[in-house]
């Protein structure tokens, strides 16, 4: 087993408030790794650090052995880490297809060839990006609505669209922040299948999720955060029995999905 993502002693403070405190864990290639923890535990903050959206106050992140802690999000994506957003952040003025094509930009020709898109320059790259985007929309199960605006989709389909947009960048690691939020049981089952198919494409998954059934069914490993600290880290069966975890989740052993 090789480590794809190494999170090493990451802390993050917000004006004196500690959102993450010395968090370390390793995500192994080809696994589904879940991060769980109560509201405000720092899960999204951790994703923001891993995707380059936030700089950690201290600590490092390494991808396939390379320290990329200070890289900008666009370069982190190009390197192979893609994400969705807990609060959906789609480009409302672009069509569904165009949203996914944006995810493909990091793999399209750069420089003058890709600059203006006058047919003589990069029609081929544009056609290819469109084909990839269509394929990704089919893959997540929302093909045939390509010309719509994201706002015309249900929230659940908007989440699928964000996954398609992330997949279009050909990531090696996909970060999913509460992908099941707002889904009914049938939709959660479908999502579980989708996550399995993404893994089967050779993509490693790091996922924040409150749906314990989904986590227990899909995850190879679970990291539990509470108040910014790692309180447990291991295979599902082991974490499930951990007293600290039970205490942290006291009162909501099977927390339902929630927005925020």
């Amino acid at each position, binding site marked *: 087993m090789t480590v794809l993502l190494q999170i090493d002693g990451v802390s993050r403070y917000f004006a004196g408030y500690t959102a993450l405190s010395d968090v370390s864990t390793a995500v192994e290639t080809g696994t589904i790794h879940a991060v769980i923890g109560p509201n405000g535990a720092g899960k999204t903050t951790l994703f923001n650090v891993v995707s*380059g959206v936030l700089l950690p106050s201290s600590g490092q992140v390494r991808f396939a052995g390379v320290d990329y802690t200070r890289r900008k*999000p666009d370069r982190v*994506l190009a390197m192979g880490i893609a994400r969705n957003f807990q609060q959906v*952040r789609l*480009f409302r003025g672009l*069509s569904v297809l165009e949203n996914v094509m*944006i995810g493909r*930009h990091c793999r399209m020709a750069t420089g003058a060839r890709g*600059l203006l898109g006058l*047919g003589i320059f990069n029609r081929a790259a544009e056609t290819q990006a469109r084909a990839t985007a269509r394929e990704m929309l089919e893959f997540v199960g929302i093909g045939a609505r390509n010309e719509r605006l994201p706002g015309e989709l249900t929230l659940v389909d908007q989440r699928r669209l964000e996954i398609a947009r992330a997949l279009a960048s050909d990531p090696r690691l996909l970060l999913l922040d509460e992908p099941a939020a707002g889904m009914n049981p049938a939709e959660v089952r479908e999502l579980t299948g989708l996550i399995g198919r993404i893994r089967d494409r050779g993509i490693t998954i790091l996922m924040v999720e409150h749906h314990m059934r989904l986590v227990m069914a899909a995850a190879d490993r679970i990291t539990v955060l509470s108040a910014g600290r790692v309180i447990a880290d291991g295979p599902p069966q082991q974490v499930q029995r951990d007293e600290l975890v039970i205490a942290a989740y006291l009162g909501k052993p099977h927390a339902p999905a929630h927005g925020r």
Partner: protein
Amino acid sequence: MLGGYWESIAIFLGINVLMSISLYVPMSAGLISLGQGGFMAIGAYVSALLTKGGVPFAPALLAGSAVAAAAGLLVGTPALRIRGIYVMILTLGFGEIVRVFFLNFDPAGGASGLVGIPPLTTLPAVLAACAVAFLIVWRLRHARLGRAMIAVHEDEVAAEAMGINLTRTKLLAFSIGAFIAGLAGGLYAHEALFIDANQFDFSRSAVTFLYVVLGGAANPFGPVLGAAIVTLLPEFLRFLQDWRMTFFGSLLILAAIWRPDGLLKAPVPRSR
């Protein structure tokens, strides 16, 4: 073809259309510039000095536009750190700096202006420039850069996380707009034949802003329509004599009340 008067109106209309497109480009990326007059001045002065020195028209125009585009990079760089109204203030300041520079730059005539510019601008040249500029911004909507500009406009955090280089996208938007404004300036100088710094003052930048606000920034026809109305309507209102600009101003206020997002609101057809 057209009589002298109407030909000259058509040429100035074309130049104003170019100015409206020059602002539409950065606005697609969410960057509102109140300094397009400054880029126009740079294009006008650089190209006029070159043709007066014997350089042929086309290379002189391109050189003027290129210098304006370089100035666009210069203004765009500090604009990367700020947003919204602060970008407007920054570009407004830039426009004033350019004006005062040419006012005091004696090799280009200083306060007395630059005279004896050869009459090289023709209607076909202006039409061709408009057509090319329009085609470029139209195509931009379905190209990597244009899509990236819209994404940046809508959500910078998501755009960057989805691989868009914010610096590159914003600087390109700024300098493509500046290039087009520089081109408009070059064509203007060789039609007006006399330029001085005050022809490119804040009111030039403000009226350019008006073209886009009036016509609408949802698609490139909006700015073109705005430029056409603002340029032509006062001509057709000449019979009102002294009341002309009062009436015109009232129309603008009515338009702002009825169509606050601009006259043309339909977006460019999206990719499907």
